[in-house]
């Protein structure tokens, strides 16, 4: 029962994620990408950061590293995989999840707290929340605008694969509450299985009581089940 948090060169939320999971009594280890995926990995986190300096496109290089073949294989066999921020970009670049995260509408790096509405509470990542519940997570990204063609997005929505949308504090999904111009305000999506998810906001940064709010615990608890 060990969750592998995969470190790439330039990952920088890896240890935060380990601490947050440890706080939830979830056994976790850091795994350097060149060492390969441990055979006993019961869960996988692709953490935030700036792997490979965001060269070419954020997540593009890490998505093509050999460990990602093992991650895809594990994901297909049902191992829970969560991509956070840069990990979400890696997830989309490696086709674990649909769509792409690209340059913010503002063309700036944005570091702020945002509200998210839980769109589907019937997944391992959200079953500690209610559908429609509003949570507050931080974002810290320059390339977080969710892009996908309209037909694919309609399919995702019809299949309930949107996990979170950016919203205001009352849960209204408005253009003003969309920090990066994401299509349909999408902040997180599911892969083909609901055990695979990516999101741009950082649950691990709102999981330790000493830091303040603990909304993020709900997402990370998926690894404890």
């Amino acid at each position: 029962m060990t969750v592998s948090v995969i470190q790439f060169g330039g990952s920088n939320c890896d240890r935060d994620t380990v601490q947050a999971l440890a706080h939830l009594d979830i056994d976790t280890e850091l795994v350097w990408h060149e060492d390969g995926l441990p055979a006993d990995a019961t869960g996988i986190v692709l953490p935030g950061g700036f792997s490979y300096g965001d060269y070419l496109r954020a997540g593009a290089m890490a998505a093509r590293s050999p460990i990602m073949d093992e991650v895809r294989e594990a994901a297909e066999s049902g191992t829970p995989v969560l991509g956070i921020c840069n990990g979400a970009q890696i997830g989309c670049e490696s086709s674990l999840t649909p769509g792409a995260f690209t340059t913010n509408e503002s063309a700036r790096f944005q570091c702020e707290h945002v509200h998210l509405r839980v769109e589907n509470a019937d997944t391992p990542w959200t079953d500690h929340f209610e559908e429609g519940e509003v949570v507050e997570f931080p974002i810290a990204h320059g390339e977080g605008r969710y892009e996908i063609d309209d037909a694919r997005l309609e399919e995702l929505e019809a299949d309930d694969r949107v996990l979170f949308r950016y919203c205001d504090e009352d849960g209204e999904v408005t253009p003003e509450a969309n920090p990066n111009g994401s299509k349909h305000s999408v902040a997180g999506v599911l892969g083909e299985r609901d055990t695979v998810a990516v999101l741009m906001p950082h649950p691990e940064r709102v999981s330790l009581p000493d830091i303040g709010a603990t909304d993020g615990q709900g997402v990370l608890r998926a690894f404890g089940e």
Partner: protein
Amino acid sequence: MTAYTATVEVRLKHGVLDPEAETTERALERLGFDLEDLRAADRFEVDMDAASADDARERAGEMAERLLANPTIHDYEVSVEER
């Protein structure tokens, strides 16, 4: 084998917002230039030896498919020249 340079141009699909291009456009306007629109693209020049121009084009196309472009948001064009 012949030496070729394959040029791969990667650009955002029509309709996909390009905030960096828009910012650049506004900066040009601030400098007093008169323009209607501006599109940006990434250009990769790949030197390689190949049996034919078609082989070089195919190999560069595969590079675009697998890494240089993200098919979700990008279109790309390949051209090949003897070096």
